[in-house]
């Protein structure tokens, strides 16, 4: 029967591939227009913003995604505000986690992320002083 021939299977696979590509394209088109916000403060968290951090927020199906593209940090939320707040938190989480690791343990992507993050934010001086004192206390 023709439906069992290898040629038919090949054509079916090609058709399936085309359909997937179309689905991918449709998903891209489903996104809403992006809006850029700038993080000016992390208060009450003890971090200082060296320069405003651009965060791009856009709708994607039922979700909003928020991205700090330069550092490749992304999050999502049910609303625009939630997505924005979530990525702000994640920026600090990634900054803390990468700062805590020795440089030798950072691969190329995390190293670049940390370098970018350090261009945009820093731990507040009094907080850094307290952390240093804690470390000295723990060591003695």
């Amino acid at each position: 029967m023709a439906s069992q021939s290898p040629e038919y299977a090949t054509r079916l696979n090609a058709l399936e591939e085309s359909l997937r590509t179309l689905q991918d394209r449709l998903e891209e088109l489903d996104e809403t227009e992006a809006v850029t916000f700038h993080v000016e403060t992390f208060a009450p968290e003890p971090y200082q913003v060296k320069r405003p951090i651009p965060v791009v927020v856009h709708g994607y199906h039922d979700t909003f995604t928020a991205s700090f593209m330069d550092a490749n940090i992304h999050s999502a939320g049910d609303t625009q505000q939630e997505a924005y707040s979530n990525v702000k938190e994640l920026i600090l989480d990634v900054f803390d986690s990468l700062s805590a690791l020795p440089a030798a343990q950072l691969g190329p992507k995390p190293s670049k992320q940390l370098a970018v993050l350090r261009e945009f934010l820093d731990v507040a001086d009094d907080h850094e002083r307290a952390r240093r004192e804690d470390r000295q206390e723990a060591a003695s």
Partner: protein
Amino acid sequence: MSRTITKEHAEKIVKKLRARVVTARAAHDLAQVFYDDVLIVEFGIRRGSSKDLGHPFLPNDLQLTHRQTLDLANCPLSYEKWVELMQSKGLIESI
């Protein structure tokens, strides 16, 4: 089959890539993927009880296409293949 990337996919990827999950601030956990004790990628996992919680940002975090991300979660893309992909992108050092 749904092509949306969800929390369930994120959790499957955590297991497959043997990621370490660290508890972070309120909205996320942070999954860190190491290879030879070097951090290769990390991604946030949204907290919430629903397995359907959207994680459309995962492909960017993982440096994969949308399809590769789903394949990684749903099995066709193996751990070894993922390592090869990361090596081809220069994110894991080739031996």
